[in-house]
């Protein structure tokens, strides 16, 4: 089933792009509604995945970020309570680091942010990103370089020293 095959992918891109579970749900919902409505228009001229990535990327770039953090916070709290106690501390630590990374990524300009998300959430190559965003490989490279410069500077406190245990 189309939805089952791509649900995590679509939701993850929405989440990593927006940093907000509620917004990610909105994005995923919109993308799948559009997908179901437009699937008949898919001509097979490009790979289905590229077509889908383009749809998700466009939706992310269009989406006005909404500040709806109450429900995600409640859900995070409930998730923490449901888990076994020994895993909670690790999870909190990981969640804290993840939040750090997500915040810095969230501060990038939209065009750089979507490139970073497609690269690191989905592991796409430069060519695949270029196809999804309908731009050149060189544009992808320059956006990623600029994003890397910001991320290196602002995430330097998470840098792993040789033999260290961070990251």
């Amino acid at each position, binding site marked *: 089933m189309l939805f089952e095959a791509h649900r995590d992918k679509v939701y993850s891109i929405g989440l990593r792009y927006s940093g907000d579970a509620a917004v990610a749900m909105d994005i995923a919902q919109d993308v799948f509604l559009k997908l*179901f409505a437009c699937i008949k228009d898919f001509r097979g001229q490009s790979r289905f995945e590229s077509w889908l990535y383009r749809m998700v990327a466009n939706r992310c770039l269009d989406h006005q970020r909404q500040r709806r953090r109450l429900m995600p916070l409640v859900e995070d709290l409930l998730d923490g309570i449901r888990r076994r106690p020994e895993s909670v501390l690790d999870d909190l630590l990981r969640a804290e680091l993840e939040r750090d*990374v997500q915040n810095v990524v969230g501060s990038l300009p939209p065009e750089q942010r979507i490139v970073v998300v497609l690269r690191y959430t989905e592991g796409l190559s430069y060519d695949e990103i270029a196809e999804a965003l309908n731009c050149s490989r060189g544009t992808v490279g320059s956006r990623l370089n600029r994003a890397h410069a910001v991320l290196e500077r602002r995430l330097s406190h998470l840098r*792993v020293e040789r033999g260290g245990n961070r*990251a």
Partner: protein
Amino acid sequence: MHKPEPDEHWLDPLLTRYLGRVQSPQGLWTRIEAARHERRNRSAGQMAWTLAAALMVVGSLWGVYPRAGRGVAYASCNSGDPVLVRAWIESAVGFDVPLPGALPAPVRLSGAREVPGANPAVLISYRSADRDIALLVSKAEQSVAHERGHRFNGKTSWTLRGQRYSVANPDDFRAACGLCHADRTS
């Protein structure tokens, strides 16, 4: 001068680890289904309204143009005789409109014509000097037998004996009053 090279060995794994794919919530499908259902209902509703509007337009055109095309005007009575006009009104629309036998000068009765619509109505025409006065009479709602007159937007309306009267005469309100406040033929 030594320029430090970016350490690519720490950023890539860090981003890969903390920006990785996550599992989507179980409720996502339910939400999408609900949105699809809502969208279908909304579009069905819009279609129903569009269809209704289209039917109204077609119905209006069908109702008006064939008559006009055949040159058939709505039934009318061109007469200054209040007895004749009163009898014609009763036969045309099915209710009695008492008309004054004498009108204050310079107002004079010039005729009446049927007004098409769901409720039977008649438009009684008067002439006052160089102006026309139109009195529209229709059946009032059953719950309203009498209602004091009021003026709105150049129109005076009142309800009497279960009939609604409206006079369109923005220029000569006094003459309009004379249409009813005069001797009646009956």
